[in-house]
């Protein structure tokens, strides 16, 4: 019996160790196999990627929408456009928001996947090809969940005078474009939190009607001079303003330039 017991214990321990050893050996073997599979997959993926890139290059002209096609596209549908960065609003955690425009129209690109490195490369005028989904938030038509690639080309928009369109339905056709409004009268200036350090709301009037404008804090960035200029505007002053025709339950231009007359 003693012998039997000793044999069982010894065999048990041996088996357990063998089990461990076997497992380790299996792991090592599996790891080697996996590495080889990964290597093969990487090679295949590389060649597939090359092929896809070639196809994409060929198909690029067909896949890219004109502004008219983009404007006609349904909400929540996939869109691909070529456009030019006009202004950068914000970057955080590899997502960035841009005002972009081409010769025919403008595209607001909300939280597009973008590394800090790429964000730095995207200066006004830079041409980008954007693939994303057309969406609408509180009246603002935008491209969301987008990716992009930088292309050759440059275009910086000049502001289009939209003064005559104020209060008219046609104004929405210029949504997101760089626009200007002249000879406006300052009605009121208020801070988002009743104190400086965030957006500034600016009410301007023309021919007896009032319109809302906004100094968007992040779009303005570190331009302290402009922030102070807008903060200091007084009711009754006449100004020319320039900015991007953002939409929030109606026109709400995000101003970038103010000239006090």
């Amino acid at each position, binding site marked *: *019996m*003693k012998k*039997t*017991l000793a044999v*069982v*214990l010894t*065999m*048990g*321990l041996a*088996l*357990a*160790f*063998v*089990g*461990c050893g*076997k*497992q380790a050996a299996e792991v090592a073997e599996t790891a080697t196999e996996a590495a080889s599979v990964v290597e093969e997959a990487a090679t295949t993926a590389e060649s597939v990627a090359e092929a896809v890139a070639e196809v994409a290059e060929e198909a690029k002209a067909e896949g890219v929408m004109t502004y008219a096609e983009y404007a006609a596209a349904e909400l*929540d*549908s*996939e869109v691909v456009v070529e456009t030019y960065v006009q202004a950068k*609003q*914000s970057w*955080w*955690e590899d*997502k960035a*928001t841009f005002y972009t425009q081409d010769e025919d129209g403008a595209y607001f690109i909300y*939280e597009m996947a973008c590394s800090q490195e790429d964000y730095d490369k995207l200066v006004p005028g830079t041409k980008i090809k954007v693939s994303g*989904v057309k*969406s*609408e*938030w*509180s*009246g603002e038509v935008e491209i969301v*969940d987008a990716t992009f690639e930088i292309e050759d080309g440059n275009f910086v928009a000049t502001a289009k005078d939209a003064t005559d369109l104020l209060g008219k339905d046609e104004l929405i056709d210029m949504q997101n474009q760089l626009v200007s409004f002249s000879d406006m009268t300052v009605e009121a200036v208020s801070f*988002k*939190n*009743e*104190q400086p350090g*965030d*957006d500034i*709301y600016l009410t301007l009037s023309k021919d007896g009607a009032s319109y*809302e404008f*906004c100094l968007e804090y*992040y779009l303005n960035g570190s331009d302290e001079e402009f922030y102070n200029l807008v903060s200091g505007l007084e009711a009754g002053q006449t100004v020319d303003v320039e900015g991007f025709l953002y939409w*929030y*339950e*109606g026109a*709400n231009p995000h101003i970038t330039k103010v000239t006090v007359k």
Partner: protein
Amino acid sequence: MMMRLKRKFIVGLSCIAVSALALTGCHGAKDSSGFEIPQEFDESQKIELTFWAKNDTNVTQTAIYNKAIEDFEKLYPNITVNMRLYTDYGKIYNDVITNISTGTTPNVCITYPDHIATYLTGNNTVVPLDDLFADEKYGLGGSSLKFDSPTVDEIVPEFLGECVIGENHYALPYMRSTEACYINKTYVEELGYKLPETLTWDFIWEVSEAAMEKKADGTFKINGQNVMIPFIYKSTDNMMITSLKQLGAGYSDSDGNILLFNDDTKEVLKTIAAHTKNGEFSTFKISGYPANFLNAGQCIFAIDSTAGATWMGSNAPLIDIAEEKLVNFETEVMTIPQYDTGHPAMISQGPSVCIFNKKDSQEVLASWLFAQYLLTNDVQIAYSETEGYLPVTRKAQQAPEYQEYLSLAGTDNDVHYDVKIKAAKLLMDNTENTFVTAVFNGSTSVRDAAGQLVENVTKSVKRKKTVDDAFIDQLYEDVKALYHLDQGAGRAGAGGKADLGKLPAPSVVLLTVLVLAWILIGAYALKERLSRKENE
């Protein structure tokens, strides 16, 4: 037009919060006990306090904070309070995290217990308040206070309980709200329905489906417009969390275990998907503020905080849409829809106040005095009247001036706006039906993940993708990865038990052999004993 908080803050800052959490998530929680209450408050010492507060883009709230500070400074002329205002809890959270690392936290801060759980990962950051509560001189209702402070018993116990993290109170409740369903009653009745006593999910879905009927010209029959989203939910985090609570399903537990990714969640998501497909449902992040759609007659059921009541309804004091878009309708305020009307459940939310530790104990005591001052009737009642908030003390709730305020509901569309007062009463009547989720280091990420599931499903259906089991399984994996929930983020800080999987085969063999050996030893001993007996 008074513009509300834009989406960029909310969406962007949730990312900040998540990343900040990821950075801090690997530390263990520490007891912040590095503060001793001074025997006396030194009124000859000049003390400057920083107070980070949050308002709801509501200028009256700013004015009330300013008045509270002014009144407090009159009582304690040696203390100066400098306020910094935020419109978003996420931004406060982010700034606190940043300032913990540089040792420049504010003295007093409006915050959420979820956030405090993360602040506690720093050394001696947030002051535990239990000893301060009980201090005879300066505690709640203390003898040396220069103002009429509530006693511990006068604070609503449910709200005070929400400020416990681990074994200590780390905050005082400041204001409380819940979610309410703001309803276009006119449209509900025009569609041939009568609002039930308790709103149910089935009722909302049924009415929403009916509201999708169109006329020959393509406009919706109910409003004659091109847009109709019958049901819009502001906080999809809350939508999922509350649904699971009502269903008795898993979400998370106090050990920090993440139970969100389960079959009940899947069923909730499938229901949302089915109704989104018909255009019956959307969210704030996808479409915009529920209030704007409700007021334009483009939404029938708008679920938002009771603290957003002043934006809801045709006669709302705060309106964010053009006057010509405003539609006249009767607004009803009801509790959020329920799965089990016999056991209603709704979330308790709203700001709390915490104080941060500093080297100078007099400075910390001054912070405590100011935090406590925010619970006085003057501040509580004035602030609660700015929105559909409820004061957190029984003392304020039962005060004659507050009772009078409630009784004047509907007498004007400003201070006594009926929708706002109904919203506050809704919470008052349902305080015992409120709940909060477990707070642990990482609980903010689980909350964000809950909302992300709803957002992704809604967005995907709108984009004509098929939402089925396979889609949801993949979504679970993606969302876990996005919020680092696949790395045990929730468990790390909470000391929960990890599931280590099945026992390896060699271990099973070894344990079996050991058991077998003991059986043989026993058998051997028995055999020896029996043979000895035989020999005797």
